[in-house]
């Protein structure tokens, strides 16, 4: 059975997005923070699971996320597993908040899949290899907690 993403996973996703939002330009669209999180994970996970392995994972996460966040409708997975926006630029610019939420849903789904496959401990280890200060809470817990 696939575990649905828990509030803890979403909290971690929001934390990661906040880190990566700071790394971007202020004028940049909000969804790009999620792209940067996924890109960092792609590089790490492609080494571990192979390009195909990561591409399968992010494709599944995107499919699941699109059901919750229509703003991801124009996002596609490229051959190497990286993400691209295939819609018009104007469309992005008009949906900053929705895009931010879409990014959060996507990263949450990706973390959820990782926890399902390799467990919480290894997922947190992988995330902390990239973001050493990433907060840890029980991602299997259904209880919402503020980070």
């Amino acid at each position: 059975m696939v575990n649905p993403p828990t509030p803890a996973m979403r909290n971690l996703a929001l934390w990661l997005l906040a880190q990566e939002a700071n790394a971007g330009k202020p004028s940049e669209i909000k969804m790009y923070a999620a792209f940067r999180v996924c890109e960092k994970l792609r590089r790490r996970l492609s080494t571990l699971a192979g390009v195909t392995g990561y591409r399968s994972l992010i494709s599944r996460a995107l499919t699941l996320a699109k059901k919750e966040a229509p703003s991801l409708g124009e996002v596609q997975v490229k051959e190497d597993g990286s993400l691209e926006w295939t819609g018009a630029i104007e469309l992005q610019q008009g949906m900053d908040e929705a895009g931010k939420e879409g990014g959060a849903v996507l990263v949450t789904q990706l973390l959820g899949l990782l926890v399902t496959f390799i467990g919480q401990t290894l997922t947190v280890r992988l995330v902390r290899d990239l973001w050493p200060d990433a907060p840890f809470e029980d991602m299997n817990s259904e209880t919402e907690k503020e980070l």
Partner: protein
Amino acid sequence: MSEQDKVKIHKLPTGVPGLDEIMGGGLPELSFNIIAGSPGTGKTTLGHQIAFANATPEHPALYFTVLGEPAMKMLRYQQQFTFFDQTKVNNTIRFINLSQFVLEKDLNAVMAQIAKEVEGTSPGIVVVDSFRTVARKTQAASEMELQAFVQNLALHLASWQATTFLLGEYTEDEMRGNPVFTVADGLVWLYQIVERNAVVRKLQIVKLRGQSSVPGMHTFRITEAGLETFSRTLGLAGKKEKERSKRRLSTGIAELDKMMGGGIPEGDSILVSGASGTGKSLLATHFIAEGLRRGESAIVAVFEERPRGYMERAKNFNLDLETAQKAGRLDILYLRPLDLSVDETLHEILEAVRRVDAKRLVIDSVAGFEMALAPGFRTDFRESLYRMISALTGIGVTILSTVEVEVSFTAFRFSNFSVSFLADDIIRLNYVEIDGQLRKILMIIKMRGSGNSNDIREYGITSKGFIIGPRMKGHRGLITKVPESLDSSAQEEEPPDKPKGEE
């Protein structure tokens, strides 16, 4: 060349219980090894166990995965094993997927990628899982290309001071003329043999340069702790034999001791053979209880009844096993799970003997022992039992085994299992029909290296246990179980197990 002049080959732990001993002390450091076998034999688990056992911050492990089990699933399943320390993942053990390189590039590029990772990490252990898929890359190319690739890989990894393991799904036919096997320093072959409803796992060290491994096939099991091996020499190879003592051990039955010239010679293997209900287990319990009474430690391996029942029965005959059990001087092993390998069982018995420093061991019964084994292991039974008995008696443990024989009124058998060669001494218990009564007789068939009574004695089982009566006179043909009377006066004596109310 003196020992000092020789290069010292350091040995690394395998992380697999029993395997270091089979390999002659461990994995030769800097060696280039192949772990081969068909799917499901445990190659990946063995590769992980070796990596987890040896990876340190100074000497990390690199685990290359290639077009086999997807890495995510591999991590998912492998973390179920207790040896899988998650804190080592991507820390002291780095998992690197080479699938893309193998699919899209040539062997030189694969080699370059491995070299890059190795040079960047300086690993102590390198695993390629599965190397078979790398080798397949060359199927369209020449064998020479594969030879060159393997040679370069071996050279490079050894130069970078890595001990390497290539995991692959090979069949034995592929071994001949395959350059991969020629270059390898070590070759571990894993087998999974299905026999009737049982699965038997075995491994063989086909080749190991620089050190002597234990030859032959060794049983292994995969549990939540990973692989666990059971050497066919039971870890007793090269153990020094103890000088035989002249001490006699009491059986706890005074008359039987007299018949045996003062008891069982210490370090003997004694077989108590008889039909069902003749009191073999009771005799064995007397032997154990007497040892415990004298302050010795003991092991009872039971296959036909549970320890609780064994204890209760002893209590009914006023034989105290409980005190010694509570004091840790007696261990009753109940060994009856199906699919048990003979070596596994013997390892358990040996372990228990070592644990309590047992001087006496009872195997009750040999037939039950054999029945508890997976069918595939039964062919090895006598050989393995012989090895264990020889090894244990060699270190001074006295072993009493019971064996059931079929009731036959035409033949006189020591046992149905042809295990009498295991015994220094044989006691035979038997039924005879006399005057419409089924009576019990006992005789000492054999005592190696010492004299014994030739008498055929009647015995009975009373609330005091095993009671041996006088020599049974006045009949001939007792051992055929249908004796003829020689003298009617000899019939006057009552059997020793006559019910008390009739006394």
